[in-house]
């Protein structure tokens, strides 16, 4: 099972390395990890996508919580939540047919073309990870993918409850 975990932690040197170290030390999976300071600069928020059964997930949550810099951890995937990931991708757009196709697919997925070169289009797309996967697959059927980068997912719970300190 894939789980998304949101972690609030002290924005201090070494805090991120403790999280990463913990995952490798205990042989937990990391599918993606993103980190940045929150609106409160003294706190960072990490989103980790991981894979594991319930038992493993329980250990991950407890072990992360045990780290001294960690203020809160919560699993997003066990409730209603919004999940987003950003994709930037360069594709070959060397003739008019491929350019129209790329533009058409990008529109369908509600992405946008953010840079145009002689031979290459650069596209930006946000969405959940599945949408990004589908987009890449569709694109690759039409043209050549030259370079791509994904941000890893971030997420937030729906509704009134907020994860704050």
């Amino acid at each position: 099972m894939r789980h998304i975990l949101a972690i609030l932690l002290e924005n201090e040197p070494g805090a991120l390395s403790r999280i990463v170290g913990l995952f490798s030390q205990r042989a937990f999976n990391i599918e993606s990890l993103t980190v940045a300071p929150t609106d409160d600069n003294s706190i960072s928020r990490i989103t980790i996508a991981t894979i594991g059964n319930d038992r493993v997930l329980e250990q991950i949550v407890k072990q992360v919580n045990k780290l001294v810099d960690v203020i809160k951890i919560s699993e997003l995937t066990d409730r209603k939540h919004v999940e987003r990931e950003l994709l930037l991708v360069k594709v070959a757009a060397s003739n008019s047919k491929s350019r129209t196709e790329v533009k058409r697919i990008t529109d369908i997925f509600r992405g946008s073309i953010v840079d145009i070169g002689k031979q290459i289009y650069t596209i930006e797309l946000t969405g959940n990870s599945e949408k990004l996967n589908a987009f890449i697959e569709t694109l690759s059927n039409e043209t050549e993918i030259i370079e791509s980068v994904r941000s890893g997912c971030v997420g937030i719970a729906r509704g009134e409850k907020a994860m704050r300190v």
Partner: protein
Amino acid sequence: MTTELFTGAEMVVKALSALKVKYIFGYPGGSILDLYDAIFQQDEIEHILVRHEQAATHMADGYTRATGKVGVVLATSGPGATNCVTGIATAYMDSIPMVVLAGQVPTTLIGNDAFQETDIVGCTRPIIKHSFNCRDLAEIPNIIAKAFYIASTGRPGPVVVELPKDLLIPQNKAPFNIETNVKMRSYNPNIKGHPKQICKAAKTISEAKKLVVYSGGGIILADASQLLTTLVETLKAPITNTLMGLGGISGTHKNFIGMLGMHGSLEANKTMANADVILALGARFDDRVTNNVEKFCPNATIIHVDIDPTSISKTINAHIPVVGLVDIVMQQLLDELNEINYSPDEEALKDWWQQIKVWRDIRSVSYEQGANEKIKPQRVIEAMYKITNGEAYVASDVGQHQMFAAQFYPFAKPRQWINSGGAGTMGFGLPAAMGVKLAFPDKHVICITGDGSIQMNIQELSTCKQYNLPVVIITLNNRSLGMVRQWQDMVYGGRHSSSYMESLPDFCKVAEAYGHIGIQIDTLDELDAKLEQAFSIKDKLVFVDVLVDEKEHVYPMHIRQGGIDDMWIKKGVKT
């Protein structure tokens, strides 16, 4: 108005004094010479100069295990700090509070592969509770206060503080401010058990027909042995201790059925296997206890009390988890039992104890000593027990001798038994014993060791001389890495690959060379008298080298991959 300014080195010393530290265990070097200079110029804190930084960590550790006070280690950057790694790991595995102050190259050089630069915070990340990189001199006092707070609360553990040289030098000064009443928004050690869980636990206990209490090192760390004894006497239940939990209840208490696990008593392991309710208190279902987890106590409802939620349901699923400090939870439990007018089911208890007696009568923890045979190692432990009235502090190294000591020296009190259980660190025994002796100069302090282990920190005989630490070292000399050899006998077809010690030194002469007394014991008929003699010498360290039977194995022993009660009782005899 002018505020007084201090160097970082002075701040470290002032902070340690404010935290009531009496001793620092350490070894100097380039990056921390300023700190040594500050130590030289005061007399509130005594520095103990060891002969190897690993020994500083074990000595601090032994001091802590015996007293409950946080041990402080000081080492220089690079090799000084890396020499501490084994000792930090040892403390971490057994949840021992420790603060390690490690020097570092000046902040301007960090990352440049400077002389004696090692990223000690990085090296120790998986074996510490927390660590700090100091980058601002004014922060030093509060970082040290936090380090002590974190090390000693919740589930205790070692904390590393890295001190770059430029923060310590006389040119840089700042005002001294310390907040010893530490509060941290990200760290609140959970203290009380959840009332609902306490109710569930009490109800389950009151319905049990075959209850067993299984307690571990958490009881010792929490100074909760009195309460544990009261609880056990209220429940009238059998109690077993882990290797780390020995002394949590008196080893001669009538409800005590011995240590459990790999080299535990048959009755302890059988009682666990047949119990319908297991009350686990400050123990963590270590693999040396459980044997094959798939076969672990299938019929038992497990109540697991621990301060560390990660210990609960990690290896064995707990039916009733209770997160909290074990002393507080035991009191809550006693109150709740009182509330529900608990009285034990005498009928069921009678049957249960009758059954346990049958297992006890097998006398699985025993040995045979023929009058003309070589000295059996167990016999040495028994003699040592008699001579010291069971009141000595016993610090152990790792191997067969450790298990014999655990089996044949029933500890009456907590903190008497000092051993590296989680990490199993050879070389722990002597420096740990030294730390204990420093704290309790008038008590018998024994280092029980082997011919292998003692050589892993034997240089500390010199420290013992310098600080007059007259511990009694008893080496069960079997001319081999006995525990390794035992496994080779049992599992590897008797192929003794590198487990035989050739060219052993004459230990008595080694001891004498360091200015101590050596006593050699070769035969059974001289054992008691010579041991008496060793313990009668109070003002000098005595190194007793006892030649023991090298063929002796530690029994009982788990059969690998079996259930907790699948055991070898003696050579060739299984349950």
